[in-house]
């Protein structure tokens, strides 16, 4: 049966029926463990379903963190290339699959994919986020590659290598797990399910058209009996979220980000059905999940064409929106558009944090997000009720004035009202760049602070393509754009007021943040892996391992809290001594 709901095609049957052969998949990561608060294991992109990136572990605290030291590092993991995946590049400790930190045989390489291997790039693995830690094993990924690593000494156990057809090979957001299955998206638009015990392929499914320039770098999310898949696209192709059966990969439903047919809600916010269909709103960063309501809360990307005309003057729903979707039905429960009619390529895909905290005198089930446009939002995650909008950024002028303390220019829904003069114009518009981006934020219930990286630049945006039909994708802007940089920071934002309580300067961009019940905030700072006091922002500890390539993670191994970092093609495992 096929049912259409605001661009939703729903195939009922597999999603609501218990998988009959769960017993065959006993062991590995139990589904109940996926729903536990972040503590002993790291079981999904954010560690747990809340998106808070807040660990309950507290062995490492503001006093003991200075004793955190390197237990092992694994520098020999290579991205596969060629027909067999065996790199010809000399590696520090192994060949194509990587060899363990200790001497031993090279890890087996499991090869699949539709390419020849010529389009794959050899070299140190470019580890992305969503590194899993389950039952003593680390499951890490780089574009087109998945690795299982012994968490006790860094030995690579197996290496899955995908011969890609090419395409937009950005960083991967990582992996998902369910029982003994590992799920991964390939940039040339397939999803694979691997046997966690040996890396062998269980199933593979095409998830988008490679020829339409989709690129699939998102981390899958396992929500109940659903594997949620999202993709990216810069070619105006329809954006969507898919749900697949975890056992078979069969499609359960597809939800489009924009109206695809006459009669669908939101179509009146576009100039035409064709504009809506090609209006994007890509789904390239994982969201968060509330197991009580079965709502998956995720953000959608910018509309296309990003900078030029061609999509009318409406809000362009449901791009740049926070969406609450029932994963069992594929129906949208509510939405909140954080950037109506975005004109700057400022996706709202940032992972939201789901928190249960008091707000205006009573406990609320909240969802908190800070988006690229430099605005911070608090909503009721069950109803979508808007509770707070605040601005962050030192030179954020696209909607309200550049003065951070100026009265915000908001509509009745609390949405920022863009100043059209700050769009890209032929004569040039002096406007801020994106104030934050996809690197995940963190929220600590202990401090009540939401931590997010902030970047502060002004530049001149030029419209180079005044064709009233609009450009495509990210085309149509450019030219000499003078830039002025006020620096990059971690902001600690009071969720009740939206005020920045403290701001800590960074020496480079962020790859994502982590807080713990020990009161520590971990992050990458230029060439340092660093820890701050989460309450005050005071620097506590650092290790000069170089720039991180993915957000830091923490978990419990053999009774000791460990902290994992990646960077420069290496894994770094820290432990308290």
């Amino acid at each position, binding site marked *: 049966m096929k049912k259409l709901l605001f661009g939703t095609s729903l195939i009922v049957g597999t999603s609501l029926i218990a998988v009959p052969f769960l017993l065959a998949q006993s062991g590995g990561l139990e589904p109940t463990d996926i729903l536990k608060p972040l503590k002993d294991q790291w079981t999904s992109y954010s560690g747990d379903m809340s998106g808070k990136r807040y660990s309950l572990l507290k062995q490492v605290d503001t006093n003991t963190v200075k004793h955190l030291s390197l237990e092992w590092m694994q520098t020999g993991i290579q991205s596969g290339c060629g027909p067999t995946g065996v790199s010809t590049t000399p590696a520090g400790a192994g060949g194509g699959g990587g060899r363990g930190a200790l001497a031993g045989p090279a890890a087996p390489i499991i090869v699949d994919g539709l390419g020849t291997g010529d*389009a794959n790039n050899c070299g140190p693995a470019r580890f992305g986020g969503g590194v899993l830690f389950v039952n003593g094993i680390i499951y890490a990924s780089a574009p087109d590659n998945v690795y299982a690593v012994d968490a006790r000494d860094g030995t690579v156990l197996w290496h899955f290598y995908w011969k890609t057809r*090419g*395409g937009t*090979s950005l960083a991967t957001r990582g992996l998902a797990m369910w029982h003994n299955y590992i799920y991964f998206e390939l940039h040339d638009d397939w999803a694979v399910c691997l046997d966690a015990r040996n890396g062998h392929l269980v199933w593979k499914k095409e998830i988008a*058209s490679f020829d*339409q320039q989709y690129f699939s770098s998102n981390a899958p999310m396992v929500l109940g009996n659903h594997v949620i898949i999202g993709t990216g696209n*810069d*070619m*105006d192709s329809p954006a969507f979220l898919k749900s697949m059966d975890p056992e078979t990969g069969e499609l359960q439903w597809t939800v489009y980000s924009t109206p695809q047919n006459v009669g669908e809600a939101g179509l009146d916010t576009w100039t*035409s059905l*064709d504009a809506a269909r090609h209006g994007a709103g890509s789904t390239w960063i994982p969201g968060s999940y509330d197991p009580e309501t079965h709502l998956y809360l995720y953000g959608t990307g910018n509309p296309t064409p990003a900078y030029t005309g061609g999509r009318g003057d409406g809000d362009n729903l449901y791009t740049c929106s926070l969406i609450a979707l029932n994963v069992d039905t594929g129906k949208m429960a509510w939405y909140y558009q954080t950037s109506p009619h975005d004109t700057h390529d400022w996706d709202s895909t940032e992972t939201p944090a789901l928190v249960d905290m008091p707000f205006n005198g009573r406990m609320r089930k909240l969802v908190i997000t800070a988006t690229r446009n430099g605005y911070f939002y608090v909503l009721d995650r069950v109803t979508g009720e808007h509770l707070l909008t605040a601005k962050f950024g030192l*030179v954020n002028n696209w909607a309200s*004035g*550049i003065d951070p303390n100026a009265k915000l220019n908001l509509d009745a829904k609390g949405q920022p009202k863009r100043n059209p003069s*700050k769009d890209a*114009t*032929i*004569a040039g*518009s*002096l406007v801020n760049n*994106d104030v934050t*981006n996809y690197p995940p934020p963190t929220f600590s219930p202990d401090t009540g602070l939401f931590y997010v990286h902030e*970047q502060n*630049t*002004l*530049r001149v945006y030029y419209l*180079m*393509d*005044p*064709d*009233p*039909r609009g*450009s*495509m*994708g*990210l*085309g*149509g802007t450019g*030219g*000499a*754009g*003078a*830039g*002025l*940089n006020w*620096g*990059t920071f971690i902001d600690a934002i009071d969720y009740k007021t939206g005020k920045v309580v403290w701001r800590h*300067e*960074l*020496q*480079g*961009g962020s790859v994502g943040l982590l807080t713990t019940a020990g009161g520590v905030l971990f992050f990458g*700072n*230029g*060439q*340092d892996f*660093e820890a701050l006091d989460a309450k005050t922002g*005071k*620097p506590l500890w*650092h290790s000069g391992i170089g720039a991180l390539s993915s957000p830091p993670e923490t978990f419990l191994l053999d009774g000791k809290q460990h902290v994992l970092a990646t960077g420069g093609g290496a894994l770094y495992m820290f432990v308290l001594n």
Partner: protein
Amino acid sequence: MNRNLWITAVAGPCLLVNALLAQAPPAGGGRGRGGRAGGFTQFTRPLASQDVLARGKALFDANCASCHAADFRGTDKGVNILRSGPALDDKHGELIAQVLAKHTPPVNMVEADTVATAEYIHSILATTGGQGSPPGRNPTGLQLNVLVGDAKAGEAYFAAHCASCHSVTGDLKGLASQYDDDPRGLQGAWVSGTKAGVFRGGRGGGLGAGQPATVTLASGEKVQGTLVKKTDFLVVLTLPDGTRKSWARENEIPKVEITDPQAAHKKMAIELDDPENKNMHDVTAYLATLK
């Protein structure tokens, strides 16, 4: 009108024809340009022969361009082919033939003509740039008037805000002649305070490396040099004699003061900002007169 198809029903004149795309298709592989291009099948697969492409272009111009436009971007009568799913997924005319079979009004082509038309479409799609930039983007022949400001008002603004540091008969004499035919370059240069008008520091970069800096030690001693690195735990300078000197930092001691060469222009940019960009456009119009 069935908008499920990328080719729609009614023939008529296109709204805008991009002359760039009316030219011969690229002879090479048509590999995309720009940020994320490369590796896509549409960009890399071999193109048909020039004879086939020329025939396809003629067929397209005769049968399709009136609704879909010669530059493929579409009109109010026909959708944009550059982002058409069937056109992008098509290999050698098989999907485009399916679309044509249902097309209203009918398009009667023999198979060889359909294939030629499809190959021509692919040759244009192959010129699509990174991140979906369309062929013919940022056309050089298009006149975009950047100098929309009031030069007189800009002169007054300059006198009030810039003249304390700059002189139009001194350091800025003949400024505009350095940016002949490039008012965007001129505007970028004066706003940023850098000759090239380039973007400094990136979107997420740290500040200060390569800039003059003063390190004040706990003892009160001051050391000057060029900043190599400053973190929460370390500061490194290159001293005037070329040697490298580093100090551990704790609780922001030693104190590090960096001379930001853009400080004045950052202050200016904040003052310059107005909802309509009027001040910026006015000053650019004025500076453009400094030949």
